[in-house]
């Protein structure tokens, strides 16, 4: 089922949290709503499932306009960050609750619970109470409860945020597996770009109540619409260099000595124009041609790779990720190169050129 949000607007008191938002989740896809906290992504989620009202706009589930349908009748499944399991019920009762509310027969309920428990691998936990489960197990129960009615859409509100690092990786792929096996459209709300990029078909990135870009992870990483998106995606993050155009060359701010030639696809910028360059760590390497000089001020060994921070003479930083075999040390003066084809250029409003 396709989910369409049209012209969604939401105010809390006098402040507009969301202004005229449009969003489409295609049938069977997993879409991430990615953004910093307070950007309105959870509000959007709550509006789609009906917990929040919309001040203006429409929500369509397939052909059905559910804008004024109460949450109880929208048939959405939801997984919360805190899992929101019912503490006084057993795992079985938790999973069965959506069916109990609809007064389905005991036999049906039992069969369906068994089915879904097998899908999320919690068949042996059914008689326990939530307090007796680990975080990962609670997450699976919560997922089972969300899926048991075969919802039209699955809502995942920061589902992995409360798990420790190892479990998070495991559940991440589990989420994807289960979503793909059931073929239910899913919306994943997260502030973790790695999570969004690794398991979602598309990402909608939000900031201050607006969707900045909707695209596949690869496209968004390579062609971000603006510096915010570029900065949000990537770990370690992208580095920015600010400067002014002078005769087709960018002169970095603060120190006229450091210059970087503009990449070919950005040629023809007028003199005096303020630009911002974005260089990802993997594109600042010893062997690239456009050399930029600086001193290594920070070294972080990450096992397979090493992360360097290089301070330029004007004080700006460039990051570089290199293989662990790299021999540079803290305090070395280096002159590494930038890959001109991969430089991202933004104007003074942050829009990518």
């Amino acid at each position, binding site marked *: 089922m396709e989910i369409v949000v049209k012209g969604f607007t939401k105010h809390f008191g006098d402040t507009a949290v969301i202004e005229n938002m449009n969003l489409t989740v295609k049938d069977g896809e997993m879409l991430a709503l990615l953004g910093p906290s307070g950007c309105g992504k959870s509000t959007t989620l709550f509006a789609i499932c009906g917990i929040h009202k919309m001040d203006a706009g429409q929500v369509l589930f397939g052909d059905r306009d559910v804008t004024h349908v109460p949450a*109880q009748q929208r048939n959405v499944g939801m997984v919360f960050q805190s899992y929101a399991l019912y503490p006084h019920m057993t795992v079985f009762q938790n999973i069965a609750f*959506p069916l109990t*509310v609809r007064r389905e027969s005991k036999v049906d309920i039992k069969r369906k619970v068994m089915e879904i428990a097998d899908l999320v691998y919690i068949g042996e936990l059914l008689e326990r109470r939530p307090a007796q489960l680990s975080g990962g197990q609670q997450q699976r129960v919560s997922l089972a409860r969300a899926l048991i009615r075969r919802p039209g859409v699955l809502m995942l509100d920061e589902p992995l945020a409360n798990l420790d690092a190892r479990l998070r990786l495991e559940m991440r792929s589990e989420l994807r597996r289960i979503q793909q096996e059931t073929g239910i459209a899913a919306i994943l709300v997260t502030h973790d770009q790695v999570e969004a990029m690794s398991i979602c078909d598309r990402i909608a990135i939000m900031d201050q109540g607006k969707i900045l870009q909707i695209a596949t992870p690869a496209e968004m990483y390579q062609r971000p619409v603006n510096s915010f998106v570029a900065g949000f995606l990537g770990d370690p993050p992208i580095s920015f260099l600010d400067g002014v155009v002078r005769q087709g060359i960018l002169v970095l701010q603060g120190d006229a000595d450091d210059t970087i030639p503009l990449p070919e696809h950005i040629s023809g910028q007028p003199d005096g124009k303020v630009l911002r360059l974005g260089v990802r760590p993997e594109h600042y390497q010893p062997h690239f041609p456009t050399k930029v000089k600086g001193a290594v001020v920070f070294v972080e060994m990450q096992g397979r790779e090493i992360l360097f921070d290089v301070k330029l003479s004007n004080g700006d930083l460039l990051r570089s990720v290199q293989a662990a075999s790299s021999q540079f040390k803290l305090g070395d003066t280096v002159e590494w190169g930038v890959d001109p084809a991969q430089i991202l250029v933004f104007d003074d409003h942050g829009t990518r050129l």
Partner: protein
Amino acid sequence: MVGHSRNWPVIAGLGLISIPLLVMYIYLFVDTVTDSPAGSVLPNRFTLEHWRFLTEGIEGKGNIWKVTLNTAIFASVTTTVVLLVSSMAGYALSRLNVPMRRYFLAGVLMLHAFPSVTLIIAIFLILQMVGLYNTLIGVILVKSTLELPLGIWIMKGFYDTVPWEIEMAGIVDGASRFRVWRSLVLPQVQPGIVALGVFSFLAGWSEYVLPQVLAPSSNVQVLSVYLASLIADDQHFDFNLFKSVGMFYIIPVIILYIFFQNKLMNIYGGGIKG
């Protein structure tokens, strides 16, 4: 954190001030099962004769078991009403989009501090006018009402601690708001219900002013009024008897107190946290 040796002056000081309490409560028990010769503090023999009132009654007084039953009915019906009404109103104030919710909340808080005894004259006249004077039901209604502001306040506090996500999950799972309250939220505030229940029961069990003023007649007498009338009556001036009746009266209180001390501490603090 602090050296042990420096505690004894504190303990001694507190102990000294606590002497009246210790003496009163120790002798409350001792005097019911012993006799003390005149002019002596130490009891001399064990006896159960002060407890004869349980089987023989006291001359000129009502049946103690009938009075006890009245007290139990008064306390438990009051408790039921308070629990029912506060658990509903507390939820509405904590979670539902009631119009003018702000003012209701302020009202509850104000009534919480409002000295209800000042109203007893008007309540007395109201009960006379509506014909509920001298009935158990009248005192129950009044007592329940006077307990409500605290009850609602406490229940609201407990509801506030229930995670919103549980209710959201319930709604998304297809349950109505009422069903969410009954099946999902109420079980979470069970500790609050128990605490408030015990508190209301004790309050009803101990209440003296209301039954004495609003229902003084002997067929709706409760234990507090019974004991007071016993003390006021010159015919049976016998402290050992008073204390035995008092001990009988306080036994349920002590039992509840032992089991629920921590919960009660919380409520006797006014249910106000910070």
